C-alpha cells in the first residue's frame, strides 16, 4: 500500500463543493501530476495533503487522507509532524525574511537541531540537493530576498528538504519562473523522485508529459481519471480527459 492514500475526500467552501468524493492511492517515489482546468480543485487537493486547508475560512472537509496508515484529519492527528513529512513548494517562491542560511536552517532549528556543526551540514547538503550551493556558498549570510526568483524557488525547495520530508507537494512550482529556472527545477524533481514521493500540481500539460509517472485528472472537483502517465496521455478512458488533453476544454 502506498504511503499516501485518499479515501472519499470531499471539500466544501461556503457550502460550495470544491472536491467531491476523491479516492486514490498516490504511488511512492514517483512524480504524480495533478492536472485539470483552472478551478477544478487541484490546489484544494494538495492543501488537504498537508492540512494547510485548515488555515482557510468556511471550509468543510470530509473523508480520510491516510499518511503511513494514519488519518491526518483524525481529531488527535499531529499537524506539525504531518507538515514536516509533507514538504511544500508553492507557486510563487516564499523566502522567509532572513538570510539564505537561516532559511534552510529554519525548519531543523524548530525541530530541535541546535549544534552549529549539524546545522552547517544540513544547510550544505540541502543547498547541494537543490543545486544552489555553488551559487550561494560564499554569501550564506546575505538576505534571501537578494536571490533571483529561480534561485529563491530552489532555496524554498532546500528549506523543505531540510526537515527530511517523505513527500514533496508542489503547487505549480515553475509558474513564476523563467524558462531556464523552470528547466532546472524540473531537472531537480527528476533527481529527487528516487528519494521522495512528489505530487505536482500543474496546468502545463507539456510539463506533466515531461515529468509525470502517474497522472490524476480532476474536473470540476471530480476525480475523472487516474493512472500511469503513459496510459492516461495515450489512451484516456474518459471523454473529458480526452477533450482536456486535446485542448477542447481548458
Amino acid at each position: 500500500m502506498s504511503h499516501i492514500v485518499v479515501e472519499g475526500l470531499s471539500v466544501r467552501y461556503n457550502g460550495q463543493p470544491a472536491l467531491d468524493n476523491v479516492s486514490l492511492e498516490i504511488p511512492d517515489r514517483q512524480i504524480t501530476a495533478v492536472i485539470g482546468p483552472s478551478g477544478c480543485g487541484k490546489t484544494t487537493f494538495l492543501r488537504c495533503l498537508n492540512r494547510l486547508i485548515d488555515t482557510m475560512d468556511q471550509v468543510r472537509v470530509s473523508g480520510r487522507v491516510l499518511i503511513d496508515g494514519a488519518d491526518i484529519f483524525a481529531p488527535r492527528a499531529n499537524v506539525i509532524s504531518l507538515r514536516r513529512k509533507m514538504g511544500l513548494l508553492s507557486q510563487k517562491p516564499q523566502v522567509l525574511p532572513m538570510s539564505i542560511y537561516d532559511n534552510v536552517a529554519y525548519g531543523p532549528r524548530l525541530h530541535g537541531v541546535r549544534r552549529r556543526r549539524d546545522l552547517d551540514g544540513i544547510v550544505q547538503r540541502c543547498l547541494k540537493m537543490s543545486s544552489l550551493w555553488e551559487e550561494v556558498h560564499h554569501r550564506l549570510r546575505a538576505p534571501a530576498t537578494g536571490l533571483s526568483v529561480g534561485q529563491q524557488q530552489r532555496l524554498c525547495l532546500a528549506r523543505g528538504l531540510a526537515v527530511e520530508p517523505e513527500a514533496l507537494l508542489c503547487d505549480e512550482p515553475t509558474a513564476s519562473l523563467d524558462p531556464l529556472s523552470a528547466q532546472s527545477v524540473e531537472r531537480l524533481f527528476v533527481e529527487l523522485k528516487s528519494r521522495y514521493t512528489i505530487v505536482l500540481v500543474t496546468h502545463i500539460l507539456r510539463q506533466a508529459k515531461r515529468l509525470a509517472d502517474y497522472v490524476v485528472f480532476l474536473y470540476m472537483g471530480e476525480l475523472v481519471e487516474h493512472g500511469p502517465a503513459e496510459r492516461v496521455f495515450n489512451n484516456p478512458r474518459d471523454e473529458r480527459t480526452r477533450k482536456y488533453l486535446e485542448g477542447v476544454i481548458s
Partner: protein
Amino acid sequence: MRLRCAEELLFRALMVLSTIAVLSGLLLIIAVITVKGAGALSLDMITRLPTGGYYLGKEGGLLNAIVGSLLLGLGATACAALLAIPVALYLQHDYAGRRRWANLVRMSLDLLWGIPSIVYGAFGFTIMLYLGLRASLLGGIIALTLVELPIMARAMEEVLRMVSVELREASYSVGATRWETMRAVVVRQALPGLLTAILLAFGRGIGDAASVLFTAGYTDHLPRSLLDPVASLPLAVFFQLGTPFPEVQQRAYAAAFLLLALVLLVSVCSRLLTRRLSRHAVK
C-alpha cells in the same frame, strides 16, 4: 473624450492641491513655532531647572519638563507596547481573527481610540483617588498608556495583517506552530511597520496634555521615584501660554519647539533602526 481628459486633469489637480495643503500646514506649524520660539531658545533652557520666578520671566530652564515628557512618553509607550503586541498578534487570522468576538475587540479599540484624552485623565484620576495615590509619574504613565494602547494595537494589527498568508504558510509547511510562525516570520517581516506603530503612539503620548493634567501633575523638580509628580512639555506650553508676560509666552513656543524636536529625533532614530532591521524583509 474631452470630458474624460478634463476629469483626469481636475482630479489630478485636486490631489496635488490637497497634498500641498497638507505639507504647507505642517511647514507653517514648524515655521511659526521656530520663529516665535527661537528667540527664547538657549542652552539654559534645556540644561537647567526653572528657578523661583521662571514663569514670571526670570532665569531657569525647562529640564524638568523635558525629562518628565521623556519619562512619561517612554514609560507609557513601553507599557502600551507590552499590551498592544499580544493583542495585535491575537487578532490575526491565525488566532482569533476569524472569530466574531475578535471583531468586537477591534470595535472596542476603535472606540477607545476616539475617546478624548481628558476622559482618560479623569478616569486615571478617579482610580488614583480610589487607590489613595496623588499626581505622579506612575499616574501619568498609566493614563498615557490608556491613550496610546488603542492607537498602537490597531496600527500593529493592520501592519501584521499585511504579512501575506503565503509567507505564513511557508513557515507552517516546515512544521512551525502558530507562535513560532508569528515570532520568527510575521513579526520579523512586519518589524518596520511595528516600529512605526510604536512611534505613532509615542508621538501621540508625548504630546498629550489633557491626560497628564490631573494624573502626573506639574513640578519644578525632577522626579526621584515613580510616585513623585512630574512636569511635561505640553503642560509647560499650556501654563506659559496662559501668562500675560510676552517673554514667558515666547518660552511656550520654545517649549513647543523642543517637543517637536524630541518627536523628530525619535522619528529619525527609529527610521534608521527600521532600515537596519528590514534588511531581510520580503518586499
